C-alpha cells in the first residue's frame, strides 16, 4: 500500500463522544467522553466486556441507536460530522462510507431474500446501477470474499449457506460500495473456530488488498492479536487504555487490561495456579460411563436418507476425571452428551451408566439413575426457570426426588451457594436479577445438589465474557477437585479444554477421530483434523499469532496437495 493511495482514504476522529439512554429513572451513561482515531487503512480493535459500551459507541456514529439514546461530542469522518447527522444525510453515509458487519450471520441476513438481492440492494441504495449490473457486481463481490461458484450461489437464500458463508456474504455486502471504514462488531463470535480462522484470514487479506480501515469490536483477545494494529480497551463506558497491539499485549498498564489479559485462556500456556490449589482427585480405574459402538441416527425427511449424528463411538469415562469432548458444531458432540445421560436413545450400540446398561432399564429406574447425574447447560438465562427463586431452582432436584425437609433443602441451597462463591442471600432472588456468570454458577450449584457422580456440562461458558468465564471455570474446577465428580465437558473452545481437561476426545462428523490425555492431544496431535483445529485457535499474543498464521497457511497448503 503506497502513501498516495492511503491519502485518498478517510480518517475518523472521535472526540468526547458520550452516549446516554433515557430511562424511567436515572439516564444510563453507556459511553463517557471517549476519544480515538482511526487512520486510513488501520485496524483498530475496541475490546471490552458486554456492557462496556463498545458496540454502542460504534452504532452511535451511524445513528443506529434507539430513540432513547442521547449522543454528545463529535465523530468526524474527514470533513463530515457524524454526530447529529439526520435523515437522508446519515443514510448516505451508512453502507457507502461506513459499513457494518454484525455478529450473528444467521439473523443478520433477511431469510426471504436471496443473497444476491441483498447485496444488490446495498449497491443500488448508493449507486445508479441497473438490476442486472448490480447482480453482476454481487457475483464479483462473492468471488472476492471466497464463495465458490458465485454465479450459482448468488441466487441462494441465506438458509442454504453455512454460517461461515453467510458471514462472507455479510462481508461482501459491507464491501459493496468501497467504504472508507468498516465496523466489524464481533464478526467471528458466532462461528466455529476453524471457520473463525478463515474469516479472520479473509479480513486480513482484504485489508492488505483494499486498504479499508476497520474498527474491530470484540472480546476475544486472540482475534485482537490476530488482526489489530492498535487496541483500545473499554471498561464501563470509558477507554481506559489505548496502545499498539504489540505494546498492549507485552505491557498492559491499566489494571483492567492486565486482569482481562490474565483471564484469557491461552492454549499451550501452563494452567493458572488457582486451578491447582486443591489437588485433583486421583483418576480411578472405575468406569462410570462406557459407550460401545454407539450409533445415533435421526430419520430424514420422507425420501431423504437418515442423518447419522453419531457413528460407532467407543468412549470410557473414569471416576474423578474430566473428559473434554471437542468438535465443531454439527460434529455430534451434544448428541453424544445427551446419550451419556440417557436423554437420547441410541439407535445402535451399548451405553453403561454407573454400572447399569441403559438399554435394559425401565423409565422409572432411569429416573432414579438420573438422580446420580448433574447437568449444566449452555445458556443459563434459558435453563433456569424465571419464575422460581434461585434457592428453589437449586433445590428443585431434591424436591423432585422427595428428599429432605424444607429446612434441609434451604440449608443445602445455602451450602451450595457458598461453594459456588455467591452470597447466601441470593437464594431469595430471581434469575433475572443475576448476571450471566452468576446465573451459570447457580446452574452449577443445581447440578451438584444431589452430589452426583457424573456431571455433563454442555458448553457451560461459551455464552460468557472471558473474565466471567475464567471465574466460572475456576469455581467449576475447584468443586470438581473437592467433590471428585466425573465430568463430560462438551465444548468447542480448545483453550478452555487446555485449562481443565484430563483427557480429550475429538469428534468430527459423528466419529471420534482422536482421544488421549490432554497433553497428548493438544501438544502432539496425531490426526490432521485435530492439528487443524488447534492451529485455528487464535492466540492472545500478536507475535505468536503471526507465526501461528504462517503455520496454519502451510498446514492448509500441505493438506490441499
Amino acid at each position, binding site marked *: 500500500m503506497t502513501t498516495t493511495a492511503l491519502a485518498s482514504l478517510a480518517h475518523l476522529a472521535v472526540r468526547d463522544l458520550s452516549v446516554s439512554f433515557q430511562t424511567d429513572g436515572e439516564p444510563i451513561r453507556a459511553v463517557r467522553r471517549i476519544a480515538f482515531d482511526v487512520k486510513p487503512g488501520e485496524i483498530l480493535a475496541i475490546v471490552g466486556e458486554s456492557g462496556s459500551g463498545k458496540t454502542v459507541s460504534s452504532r452511535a456514529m451511524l445513528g443506529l441507536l434507539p430513540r432513547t439514546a442521547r449522543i454528545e461530542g463529535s465523530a468526524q469522518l474527514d470533513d463530515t460530522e457524524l454526530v447529529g447527522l439526520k435523515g437522508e444525510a446519515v*443514510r*448516505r453515509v451508512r*453502507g457507502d462510507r461506513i459499513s457494518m458487519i*454484525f455478529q450473528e450471520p444467521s439473523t443478520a441476513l*433477511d*431469510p426471504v431474500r436471496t443473497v444476491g438481492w441483498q447485496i444488490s*440492494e446495498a449497491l443500488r*441504495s448508493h449507486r445508479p446501477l441497473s438490476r442486472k449490473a448490480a447482480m453482476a457486481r454481487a457475483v464479483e463481490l462473492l468471488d472476492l470474499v471466497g464463495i465458490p461458484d458465485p454465479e450459482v450461489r448468488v441466487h441462494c*437464500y441465506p438458509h442454504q449457506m453455512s454460517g461461515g458463508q453467510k458471514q462472507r456474504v455479510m462481508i461482501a455486502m459491507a464491501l459493496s460500495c468501497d467504504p472508507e471504514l468498516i465496523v466489524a462488531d464481533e464478526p467471528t463470535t458466532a462461528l466455529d473456530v476453524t471457520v473463525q480462522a478463515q474469516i479472520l484470514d479473509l479480513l486480513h487479506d482484504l485489508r492488505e488488498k483494499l486498504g479499508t480501515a476497520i474498527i474491530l469490536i470484540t472480546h476475544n483477545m486472540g482475534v485482537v492479536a490476530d488482526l489489530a494494529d492498535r487496541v483500545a480497551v473499554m471498561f464501563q463506558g470509558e477507554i481506559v487504555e489505548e496502545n499498539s497491539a504489540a505494546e498492549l499485549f507485552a505491557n498492559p498498564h491499566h489494571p483492567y487490561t492486565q486482569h482481562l489479559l490474565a483471564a484469557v485462556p491461552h492454549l499451550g500456556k501452563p494452567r493458572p495456579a488457582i486451578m491447582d490449589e486443591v489437588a485433583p482427585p486421583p483418576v480411578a480405574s472405575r468406569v462410570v460411563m462406557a459407550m460401545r459402538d454407539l450409533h445415533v441416527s435421526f430419520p430424514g425427511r420422507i*425420501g431423504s436418507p437418515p442423518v447419522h449424528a453419531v457413528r460407532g463411538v467407543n468412549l470410557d469415562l473414569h471416576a474423578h476425571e474430566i473428559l473434554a469432548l471437542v468438535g465443531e458444531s454439527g460434529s455430534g458432540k451434544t448428541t453424544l452428551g445427551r446419550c451419556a445421560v440417557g436423554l437420547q436413545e441410541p439407535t445402535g450400540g451399548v451405553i453403561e451408566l454407573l454400572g447399569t446398561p441403559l438399554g435394559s432399564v425401565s423409565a422409572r429406574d432411569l429416573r432414579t439413575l438420573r438422580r446420580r447425574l448433574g447437568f449444566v447447560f449452555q445458556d443459563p438465562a434459558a435453563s433456569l426457570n424465571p419464575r422460581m427463586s434461585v434457592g428453589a431452582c437449586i433445590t428443585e432436584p431434591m424436591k423432585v426426588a422427595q428428599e429432605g425437609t424444607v429446612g434441609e433443602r434451604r440449608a443445602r441451597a445455602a451450602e451450595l451457594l457458598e461453594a459456588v462463591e455467591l452470597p447466601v442471600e441470593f437464594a431469595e432472588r430471581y434469575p433475572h436479577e443475576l448476571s450471566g456468570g452468576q446465573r451459570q454458577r447457580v446452574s452449577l450449584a443445581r447440578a451438584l445438589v444431589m452430589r452426583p457422580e457424573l456431571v455433563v456440562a454442555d458448553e457451560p461458558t461459551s455464552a460468557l465474557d472471558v473474565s466471567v468465564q475464567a471465574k466460572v471455570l475456576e469455581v467449576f474446577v475447584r468443586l470438581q477437585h473437592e467433590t471428585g465428580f466425573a465430568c463430560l465437558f462438551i465444548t468447542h473452545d480448545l483453550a478452555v479444554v487446555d485449562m481443565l481437561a484430563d483427557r480429550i476426545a475429538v469428534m468430527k462428523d459423528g466419529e471420534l477421530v482422536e482421544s488421549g490425555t490432554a497433553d497428548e492431544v493438544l501438544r502432539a496431535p496425531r490426526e490432521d483434523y485435530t492439528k487443524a483445529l488447534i492451529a485455528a485457535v487464535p492466540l492472545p499474543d500478536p507475535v505468536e499469532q503471526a507465526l501461528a498464521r504462517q503455520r496454519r497457511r502451510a498446514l492448509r497448503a500441505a493438506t490441499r496437495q
Partner: protein
Amino acid sequence: MARYVGQRLLQMIPVFFGATLLIYALVFAMPGDPIQAMGGERGLPIAMANRIRAEYHLDQPFFVQYWYYIKGVFTLDLGMSFQRRPVFDIIAQVYPTTAKLAVYALAIEGILGVAVGLISGIRRGGIFDTSFLAVSLVVISIPTFVIGFVLQYFIGLKAGILPATATGGASWRALTLPAITLGSVSFAYVLRLTRTSVIETQTADFVRTAMAKGVTRRKVVTGHILRNSLIPVVTFLGGDLGALMGGAIVTEGVFHVNGIGHTLYRAITRGEPTTVVSIVTVLVIVIMIANLLVDLLYAALDPRIRYAK
C-alpha cells in the same frame, strides 16, 4: 412442489371420507322422520311413504345408504331435494354468490387490514395507531348483525349510496355492504396481527442490517419488514377464507343474499338430510382446498419452508 401438492391431495381422501361419514351419521341421527314430516299433520299413506323411502334408499342399512351417497358424489349426482330439485342445481345456483361475497370480504379485510396494520406497526404509539386500535376494539366488540343493520340503515336506506339488500341480484355493487359487514371483524384481527408482527420484525437483526446498508426507510419497510411479517396474517386469512366459503347465515339473512349459508340453514330447519349432507360435503372440499392454498402461499412467502426435495 408438484410432489408435495400430490401428497396433500392424497391426504384429502381420508379426510373427505371421515368428514362425510361423520356428517352423514349425525344428520341421519337427528330426531324425527323427515318423510312423515313431508305429509304435514295428516302424515303420508304407508305405501307412498315406503315408495319415497325406497327412492332415497332410506330403507337400506346405514352403510348402504352412505355407499349410494358417495357413489352419487363421484358422479356429480347429489340426489334430489324434497322439493324435487336436484341438489346439485341448488348448490350451483347459490354457491357463486357465496364465493363472490367471500372473495370480496377477504379482499377488504386482507388489503385494508394489512395496510392499516403495517402503518400502525411502524408508527407505533402515534395518533394513527391509537385511533385504529380503538376502532378495531369497537368492531370486535359489536355483534356482526348490528354492524350489518347500521350499515344497511345509514348507507343503504338513509344515504342511498349502495343497495340496502341483494334481492335484485348479486352484483358486486349489491354485495358491497354485506362484504364490509362480513369483513369488518376479521379486518380488526388482521390489523392487530399485522401490527404485532410488524413491531416484532422491526427489531430483527436483518432490519438493522438493511438500515446499516443505507437502504431508505420506505424500502426497508416494503422490502424486508412487510414480507417477513405476513406469515401469521396469511394463516389467519386462510382460516377465514374457509369460514367465509361456508357461507354467512347472519349476514346473508340481514342483506337477503341468496347464498349457501342461507340455503343450508333452510335445509336444516326443514329437515332435509340429503341437501344438508351434500352442501356440507362441498364445503369440506372447499375448505381443504383453501388450506392447501394457504400452505402453498407460505412457501411462496418464505423460502425456508420447503415442500419438495
